[in-house]
């Protein structure tokens, strides 16, 4: 393989990887606080894509502003869903899991009714390429990578520097003790769920100009995000980052060498291997 192809595949893999990281971070955040795997996480990604489609492509709002609006809007919807669906099921993780499956169908149906079944395209935000040492990169991919990377850093700073972030980590580690320090578990869970879904929406908004938007676009990314958080370790933030980048690279190199089907199979083969060999993942603890 020549160097140009290698670097292009590498950058594609990293770009794909940071989007996986964003989706997986939301999923892992929700898991660590609420102890449920939210199967409907992909539908928040879908909603983020549509929000971007409407605000950016239809209403002509600035792209970056449209991303922020998508995240806020979807985050808000998520907070309401936490109140209405997941809070009453707090002490029943299995029921909450089933409810999240129901939510997949509900939100996909709502998407179908509300947005229509046709594929929607979002125009490219930046066009053109950048030549670096003989390798040519699409500027759009570099921008997506930059924004996703920035969101990951902001999340890290939020969790470690802001009082609310401390509260989230405390609730994730020892719920009752968090309440005893004066942290509202209800409020913190709602905000964490909103934040996690807003990250999925951000990923959907970032992916929108590169892929078509449709009501079922969330199914595959959420599966990939499962692979990521199981690979990295359930509930682990560094794990989600490492797992996402690894999966992005595996898929990118896999696609280049063996085609899309094999590369996708490879991801799920990794999932099964991790479950058998190291069920706690790369960074997980029991």
């Amino acid at each position, binding site marked *: 393989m020549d160097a140009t192809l290698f670097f292009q595949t590498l950058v594609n893999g990293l770009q794909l990887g940071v989007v996986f990281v964003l989706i997986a971070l939301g999923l892992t955040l929700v898991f660590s606080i609420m102890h449920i795997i939210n199967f409907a996480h992909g539908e928040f990604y879908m909603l983020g894509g549509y929000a971007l489609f409407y605000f950016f492509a239809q209403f002509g709002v600035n792209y970056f502003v449209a991303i922020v609006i998508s995240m806020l809007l979807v985050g808000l919807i998520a907070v309401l869903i936490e109140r209405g669906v997941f809070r009453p099921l707090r002490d029943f993780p299995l029921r909450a899991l089933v409810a999240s499956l129901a939510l997949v169908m509900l939100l996909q149906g709502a998407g179908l009714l509300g947005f229509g079944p046709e594929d929607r395209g979002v125009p490219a935000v930046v066009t053109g390429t950048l030549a670096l040492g003989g390798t040519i990169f699409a500027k759009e991919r570099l921008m997506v990578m930059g924004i996703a990377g920035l969101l990951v850093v902001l999340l890290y700073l939020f969790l470690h520097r802001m*009082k609310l972030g*401390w*509260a989230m*980590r*405390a609730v994730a*580690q*020892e719920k*009752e*003790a*968090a*309440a*005893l*320090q*004066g*942290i*509202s578990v209800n409020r913190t869970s709602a905000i964490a769920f909103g934040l996690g879904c807003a990250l999925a929406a951000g990923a959907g908004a970032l992916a929108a100009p590169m892929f078509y938007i449709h009501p079922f676009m969330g199914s595959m990314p959420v599966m990939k995000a499962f692979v990521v958080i199981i690979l990295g370790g359930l509930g682990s933030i560094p794990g989600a980052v490492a797992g996402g980048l690894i999966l992005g690279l595996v898929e990118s190199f896999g696609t280049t060498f063996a085609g899309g089907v094999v590369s996708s199979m490879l991801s799920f083969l990794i999932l099964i291997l991790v479950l058998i060999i190291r069920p706690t993942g790369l960074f997980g*603890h029991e």
Partner: protein
Amino acid sequence: MLLSLKDVKVHYGRVEALKGVSLEAEEGAIVGLLGANGAGKSTVLRAISGLKALTTGEIWFRGERIDGASPQSIVSKGIALVPEGRKLFPFMTVRENLRLGAYLRKDRSQINKDLKEIMEHFPILEERKGQQAGRLSGGEQQMLSIGRALMSKPTLLLMDEPSLGLSPLMVTEIANIIVDINKGGVSIVLVEQNARLALSLAHKGYVLETGNVVLEGDAQELIDNEHVKKAYLGG
């Protein structure tokens, strides 16, 4: 009276864990709450802290009724719990655990002073301040759990079996700490299976059996009581 429970009943599902418990804690005192495993001691503390709702009954603290209030609001009124099993934030550092104890406080500079003071009081915590709480030994974890509770500046400290699982040497150290905290003006409700320890520290004691208070009195009275001797002090 600083704290009083009046005819408190608590259920877990259909099981009645507290069957009408009344008890009182005077300002400045250490009150011991004794009883065998499953007697309802932790449930009493959980009810006071707002973690467990009452079925009926009342809890009063400093002339205010507090049953039904959220754990947050109860901490803010000046009641802190050192829970059974320590319940630290295992992946946070010692310092972060202590800092979280002051979660509701806004007086930043005073918080830092208190943090220093607690580290001076527990030199081992100072030494380990950057380590994850989950990696401490049992005794160190107990000190951290106590330190974290003190960071909220409580008037009343509830302690749930602080001696559990510790070496005899460590138990003595924790006992000294409890006395020190009390001398510093904090009232204490001390739950213990180790009746000897509890009665040696407490001014007043209650004996709980299957959800009922069966005996109460000054610590010395309880030490001399035949039933207590037989059932709790090993003859």
